[in-house]
């Protein structure tokens, strides 16, 4: 599927995990062309669409950037009209509408995660064709196939922030270690009621496993 993407693609590993009091969203930072040339080692795949809502992108970089730009505008406008911060579900719905209505021409998938006053920390997946799904945690991108086992085994509901950070970092490191189109540094964003904290873990500081 990924080899069908024309232009720069983010063959990628992205994930989002809720914990007690917030949500952690993370990604790798590699962008490739044709599955064999790394066009960027430091691409930003965590796009902030509102104060407490982030979105990570997978698929065609051009499509994903265009969709998140349009979504950012629409969410901002919606928030001004409602005179209150948008719900995470609203942000995810905006992305879903854009993906579903243009599904013939677009090749981009998203994970939306954030915190709002109504439901607290939430994670939503918007798949390629425009399916919207709410889950306690989710993984996506080409690298995610290598960590389904790890994620299913190690995820616990209501983790603490430190446990959740460790879970997310390990998951990203494992996926980046096996998937050739994921790599670079690990970007992690912790979103809570208090605010947003961005962490970058360079490749050599990632956890190492038995064969490295």
């Amino acid at each position, binding site marked *: 599927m990924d080899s069908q993407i024309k232009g720069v693609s983010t063959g990628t590993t992205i994930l989002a995990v809720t914990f007690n009091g917030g949500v952690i969203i993370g990604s790798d930072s590699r962008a490739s062309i044709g599955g064999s040339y790394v066009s*960027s080692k430091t691409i930003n795949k965590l796009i902030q669409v509102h104060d407490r809502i982030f979105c990570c992108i997978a698929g*065609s970089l051009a499509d994903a950037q*265009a969709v998140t730009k349009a979504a950012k505008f629409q969410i901002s406008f919606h928030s001004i009209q409602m005179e209150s911060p948008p719900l995470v579900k609203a942000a995810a719905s905006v992305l879903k509408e854009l993906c579903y209505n243009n599904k013939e021409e677009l090749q981009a998938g998203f994970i939306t995660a954030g915190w709002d006053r109504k439901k607290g920390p939430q994670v939503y997946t918007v798949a390629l064709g425009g399916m919207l799904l709410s889950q306690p945690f989710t993984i996506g991108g080409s690298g995610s196939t290598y960590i389904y086992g790890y994620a299913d085994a190690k995820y616990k509901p209501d983790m603490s922030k430190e446990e959740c950070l460790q879970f997310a970092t390990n998951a990203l490191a494992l996926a980046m270690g096996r998937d050739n189109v994921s790599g670079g540094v690990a970007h992690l964003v912790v979103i809570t009621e208090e605010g947003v904290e961005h962490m970058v873990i360079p490749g050599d500081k990632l956890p190492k496993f038995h064969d490295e």
Partner: protein
Amino acid sequence: MALSNVVETPASGFNFENVSRNVALKGLLEGGHTKAPKPMKTGTTIAGLVCKDGVVLGADTRATSGEVVADKMCAKIHYISPNMYCCGAGTAADTEKTTDLLSSNLTIFSMNSGRNPRVVMAVNILQDMLFRYRGQIGASLILGGVDCTGNHLYTVGPYGSIDNVPYLAMGSGDLAALGILEDRFKPNMELEEAKELVRDAIHSGIMSDLASGNNIDICVITKQGVDYIRPYQESEYKDKRQRRYKYRPGTTSILTEKIVPLELEVVQETVQRMDTA
């Protein structure tokens, strides 16, 4: 929010009209045994980097049309605004027109709003336009400039993807140039060192890529202004062309001369007066 544009931007959301047009065009051309004309590609090495005092952009000057060098002194660093320049790789016409359009739009914007355009604005306009055309505009651009928020360097791909980077190379010679940049780039370099590094990167592209060559242009953008050095370095392989191909009478020796008068008969003669006043 309205800003006047030279070309109308669609009202909202995405406009995929051109997709069906492109499909129809393809069918029309291939079905009717005609081939679409092959656009001239610049086959290029372009590079840019951000240094302490500003942004340095570099490019070679060869434009190829198939296996022939169509232009030996092609200008690949295009003017966008007094504080921004853009190197273009890919289809020559597309890069020219896209940068021209961008430059016009930004001039209108700065006249309307009274503000100098920022590099992010130029990048956003480029991204919107290239995405709308779904990759049919073959322009890979390196946009560099200095504005009130600092020194910026952006890459814009033909499908509309953008990335903000400290150093960059694009075009057919990009891998060779990138090797040099990866090895010697440091953040906050001095201007002279930066110019030499860009020169070396383009030079390596010229040496390793057949479609890049001839001279090297460098453009230095700082807060004080722009220094467009064209050429920064001329190619060592220059030929001596005559340029004037008029020969004096007698250069070619005449061996024999035969004059045959033609017998003409005057059939009709008309005289028309001309008014000379």
